[in-house]
């Protein structure tokens, strides 16, 4: 039996193509049924998320993959003469197994380490089980994939780390204030980077961001884009006493942002925590402000450093996670009922049974006048003899389990000429 995977994801297909396969439970079920309708397919599962649609099958022979792709991805054109199959990837055997492990562990996701995918893999598994599309192979594969995902989550911190200046600001805000909810953001200046960071921090909530700029036009443009509310420059000192997070993005320093001003502001705030993100170049807020109690000042370089550190850390975790996957794929095959000693045992049992049946038949043809009871007795006796003879070698092989040595297995097969069969 072979694992076969056919699918497309955010790396191989643009959103226009992926949209054509936007999945609902009904569509998934339809795809699943189509896959199962193929004679070659024994088991199947459809895994669909907003970034991928993948069909996992178990087929007897790898060359049957083409049938799966043809049948399941029937919408073979994406318009403008573009063939859907150009965006498909097909993997078989351990490559397919490895791919599912990577997907479940969120190594193949758009945002590496996000947690949603584990739930989606579980849903795909449950849905296929509900449709009775699972057999022992996919059952085992998906259980293993979920186990690998859990192991990687426990043993690495793949989901942690920051990927942009905006997410670094969000991470710091969470570290200081616990949550972004109900936090007032004051954006001083209307530059592009300030806007990006303010949008990250506003978390989509309305009325949370106040925008102050010396020229009203730019601030109004930001207000119209739905970022927040424009306030007058004269209100700046007052707004600083109420805001939790101040983002400064001016092209030059202003008196309102000097250290003495901050001392007064902190006094007026009754020392409530203030997080300042200084994105201005040159810096808008003097570094000495950072020594004030309950003030946390970060400039653009500090945020970039956090992003760089996060990148390095993520890479380390990714390497560890990939090593775990490689190890688990190896174990998956080593402990498979179809590898190791099991096929040899089955072949031997079959060969001996064939011999027994043919010898019984030959003997019975020579013995005339036997009653049905006599024939049954002879049959049972030969079965018992065969069973007794096979008992010890089978127990020895089973006892060695997955750790059976290749050399030992080879001798065993040669001894009984098992490789010559079928």
């Amino acid at each position, binding site marked *: 039996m072979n694992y076969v995977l056919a699918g497309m994801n955010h790396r191989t297909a643009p959103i226009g193509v992926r949209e054509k396969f936007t999945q609902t439970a009904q569509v998934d079920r339809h795809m699943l049924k189509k896959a199962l309708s193929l004679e070659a397919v024994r088991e199947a599962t459809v895994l669909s998320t907003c970034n991928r649609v993948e069909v996992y099958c178990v087929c007897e022979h790898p060359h049957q993959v083409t049938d799966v792709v043809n049948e399941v991805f029937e919408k073979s054109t994406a318009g403008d003469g573009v063939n859907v199959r150009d965006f498909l990837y097909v993997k078989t055997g351990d490559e397919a197994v490895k791919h599912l492990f990577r997907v479940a562990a969120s190594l193949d996701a758009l945002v590496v380490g996000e947690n949603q995918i584990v739930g989606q893999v579980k849903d795909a598994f449950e849905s296929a089980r509900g449709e009775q599309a699972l057999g022992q192979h996919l059952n085992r594969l998906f259980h293993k994939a979920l186990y690998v995902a859990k192991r990687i989550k426990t*043993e690495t911190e793949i989901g942690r780390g920051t990927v942009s200046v905006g997410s670094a600001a969000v991470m710091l805000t969470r*570290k*200081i204030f*616990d949550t972004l909810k109900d936090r007032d953001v004051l954006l001083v200046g209307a530059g592009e980077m300030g806007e990006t960071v303010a949008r990250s921090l506003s978390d989509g909530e309305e009325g949370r961001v106040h925008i102050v700029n010396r020229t009203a036009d730019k601030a109004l443009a930001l207000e119209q884009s739905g970022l927040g509310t424009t306030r007058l420059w004269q209100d700046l000192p007052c707004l600083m006493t109420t805001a939790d997070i101040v983002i400064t993005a001016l092209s030059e320093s202003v008196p309102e942002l000097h250290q003495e001003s901050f001392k007064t502001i902190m006094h007026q705030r*009754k020392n409530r925590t203030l997080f300042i993100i200084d994105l201005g170049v040159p810096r808008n807020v003097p570094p000495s402000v950072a020594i004030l109690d309950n003030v946390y000042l970060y400039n653009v370089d500090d945020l970039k450093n956090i992003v760089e550190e996060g990148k390095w850390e993520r890479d380390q975790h990714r390497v560890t996670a990939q090593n775990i996957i490689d190890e688990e794929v190896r174990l998956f095959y080593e402990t498979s009922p179809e590898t190791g000693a099991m096929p040899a045992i089955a072949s031997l049992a079959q060969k001996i049974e064939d011999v027994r049946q043919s010898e019984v038949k030959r003997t019975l043809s020579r013995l005339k006048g036997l009653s049905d009871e006599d024939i049954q007795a002879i049959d049972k006796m030969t079965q018992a003899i065969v069973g007794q003879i096979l008992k010890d070698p089978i127990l020895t092989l089973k006892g060695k389990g997955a750790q059976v040595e290749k050399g030992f297995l080879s001798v065993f097969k040669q001894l009984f000429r098992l490789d010559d069969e079928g």
Partner: protein
Amino acid sequence: MQTAFVSVLIFYLIATVFYVLRVIVGRPLFSAIGFRVILVGAVLQLAVLATHWYGIQAVLFVTYLDAFQISALLLVVVFITLCFTQKFYGSGLFFVTLIDVFCILSLTLQNPYSITSTLPGFGFLYFHLASIFLSLSVFSLGLVTALMYLMLEYQLKSKKLIGLAAKFPSLAALEEIHHKALSFGFILFSGAILTGAGYSKIRTHHYIDEDPKQILSVLSWLFFAVILNFRVRRGWLGHKAVILSLMGFVGLFFLFFIGIK
């Protein structure tokens, strides 16, 4: 029964080893194992305490053994609750170390005299001891959160979020728990002082005398009262409040161990 309490301690010591490994090796797997060992230890401790209480058929808190064991168990329960509600990752080593200390004290300290319910003013004495040990537990939580706050604050100020502190809950969450521990511990401590004064009145006919322990207790109470009051009135939040309360905790623990001696 002593052996059963020793086995509880062994569980907590094993958990400590895992939390130490978490810090040294840096793999979250160790703290996950440590946490599970603590869970098992807590269940065992509860069972042992219940058996102990059933065996002695007397009130708890009147020997060092059961008073420290209850304080340790309370701290374990608080830690487990915080892990589930506040994602108190990275704090295990702090808690488990204190729990170990409480368990070791419970097994090593000898009671100077036995307390029975026939003693004059036993009611006052009993509530005095219970309030002291419960406040010790709650103030320990305050001590742990204060230390965590200062470590995280230092890293945020120096812009290097690394190691254990990077996994701590937020400053706001730590400050809130610290403040709650301080407030609740203060209430218990007030109860301890009042019941202690009541007991003193029965024994010596004075609410307070020249015993340095009593004077230091009242001074500590005043110190915490000032911190709590100024937090509201003068905005003694964050760093300043944490440093002051830390000084208070250290003084209080010193006082507590003078009391034991």
